[in-house]
């Protein structure tokens, strides 16, 4: 049991609800759906109906009005049972951000449906030739009367082919970040063509694919913010998104630690439980310490965000540290189980493969260091 200090009794009820859902709806399905690369649309719907797809947005918009501090702990609980579902919640929450924060009054009318769990969102920034260097993106949006005509290819899009709406970052102006705009596109728009899902190393219940835009006509009133505001919107959305990934990482690492500890208490060698060997006990102690530190870092960044204070660097630190921790802890969990850790009868080898993606998405951990270093150089 993780001891938590929560801001309100409501938050405690929310975490109880998340725990119940995670134990009853997520945990029993995770192994099988991951093995079969099956996207759990019904589980996401259940999670959405319970109100978990719009947690950090105002109640007036159809959200739950929860601070990031609480939202992230919900993600953490979900991730401890099934990373793909937690990540789906995180990506969806990220995909709602541009409209919630920068949308016009007209666009904001879409929020209740987006936040209420009826619609699933995706966030289309990366491209085949431009991942870390997102400002170099080449997908074009050309104004034609009342529409933008979008052409180009987006890559690595979580929920491709499954989402109901896409945030599409495209070039409406000249080169560089100032030429980028954000469009909120309906997934049914003709010319938006999700490609075959990628064959990923793990995390296969979460569909990720390229999306080809072939003269897709997006109504001009779906421009979020002004023309040229897209890159700023993308980066500000990522501050929150990175905290979401940090929370996923903490949850995954906690699951791996709990599993490894359970095993180490049961498994005996040389006549005693292996946890009693200092070599293993210290390894688990280090893992527990790193997880606590990652959680504290993530919550600190979240509280800065909730207080309206600058938090980009802290969010980057949290993402970097939490996901590196998840990678290390899941790898060590395999070690704790020995041969049993290397086979799919136990979930730890899957968790180890899943952890890897967290070091890559929403800015690789190298890019997080770039963000932190840039912050140090400037301040």
């Amino acid at each position, binding site marked *: 049991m993780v001891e938590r200090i929560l801001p309100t009794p*409501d938050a405690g*009820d*929310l975490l109880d*609800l998340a725990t*119940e*859902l995670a134990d009853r709806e997520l945990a029993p399905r995770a192994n099988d759906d991951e093995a079969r690369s099956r996207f759990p649309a019904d589980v996401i719907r*259940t999670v959405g*109906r*319970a*109100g*978990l797809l719009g*947690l950090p947005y105002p109640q007036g918009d159809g959200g*739950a009005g929860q601070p990031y501090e609480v939202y992230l702990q919900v993600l953490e609980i979900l991730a401890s049972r099934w990373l793909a579902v937690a990540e789906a919640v995180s990506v969806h929450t990220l995909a709602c951000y541009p409209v919630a924060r920068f949308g016009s009054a007209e666009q904001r009318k879409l929020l209740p449906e987006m936040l209420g769990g009826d619609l699933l969102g995706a966030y289309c920034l990366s491209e085949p030739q431009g991942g870390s260097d997102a400002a170099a993106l080449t997908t074009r949006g050309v104004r034609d009367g009342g529409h933008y005509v979008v052409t180009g290819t987006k890559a690595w899009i979580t929920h491709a082919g499954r989402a109901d709406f896409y945030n599409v970052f495209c070039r409406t102006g000249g080169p560089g970040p100032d030429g980028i705009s954000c469009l909120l596109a309906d997934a049914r728009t003709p010319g938006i063509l999700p490609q075959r899902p990628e064959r990923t190393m793990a995390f296969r219940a979460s569909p990720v694919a390229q999306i080809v835009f072939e003269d897709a006509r997006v109504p001009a009133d779906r421009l979020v913010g002004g023309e040229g505001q897209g890159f700023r919107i993308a980066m500000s959305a990522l501050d929150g998104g990175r905290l979401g990934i940090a929370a996923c990482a903490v949850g995954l690492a906690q699951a791996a630690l709990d599993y490894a500890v359970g095993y180490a208490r049961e498994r005996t060698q040389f006549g005693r439980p292996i946890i009693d060997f200092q070599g293993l006990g210290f390894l688990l102690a280090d893992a527990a310490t790193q997880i606590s530190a990652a959680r504290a870092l993530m919550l600190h960044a979240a509280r800065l965000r909730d207080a309206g204070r600058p938090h980009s660097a802290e969010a980057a630190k949290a993402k970097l540290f939490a996901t590196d921790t998840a990678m290390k802890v899941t790898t060590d969990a395999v070690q704790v189980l020995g041969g049993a850790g290397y086979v799919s009868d136990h979930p730890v080898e899957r968790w180890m493969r899943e952890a890897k993606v967290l070091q890559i998405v929403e800015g690789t951990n190298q890019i997080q260091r770039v963000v932190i270093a840039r912050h140090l150089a400037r301040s």
Partner: protein
Amino acid sequence: MNIVVLVKQVPDSGAERNLRSDDSTVDRGSASNVINEMDEYAIEEALRIREAHGGEVTVLSMGPAGAAESIRKALSMGPDGAVHVVDDALHGSCAVATSKVLAAALRTLSPDLVLCGAESTDGRVQVVPHMLAERLGVAALTGARKLTVDGGTLTVERQTEEGYEVVTAPAPAVVSVWDTINEPRYPSFKGIMAAKKKPLRTLALADLGIPADEVGLAGATSAVVEHSQRPPRSGGQKITDGGDGGVRLVEFLAAEKFV
């Protein structure tokens, strides 16, 4: 339609459960207590009827003060309000007395439909729905796996060992349901917050005009004379395969009538 759903708080059937050593009643203090599972299906059915036909859903529960927690949980799924019959004298009530108290409370609510689970996981006697219907002078449609409401007519598919029977009755009636009838929803976070503000009325025996000696251990028509712990699990039978392992496994399964 004015629907009342009966909800009972029971010890979690997944956890270790005990009878009390002093009076052989269910120990509600040691186990973690939850809504009787079958009652969640009754709540879900009530909510679906309300969604389709309008009306109001009220939760009615008889139980100790601690049952209020389960009542709030039930309310978080969506009912409009709740009535909690709570009185120290009710401790140890038998099914007959329980039905007397619930019937009295139901009369104050004049429902068009009473929904409940077909059994509770603690008592498992399955008689309360029938007794209630008898006391209220209405039909008992029990063990439903499907319920349709058509104007004032209720039709259920009554689950039996072999299949089902179709039974029809005019409202008001008591309908008890099995877990085959629907898939209960989870409370939503908004529902949980809203439930905190929903009306929860408590009634004591005096409010229902029932003398204390007609209920509880004092007025019980049945009594648990003694009880003992379930014997600890024996070691089981180990079959070491000496070439005939498969045959011996099948023999075991056949002897236990598994195959």
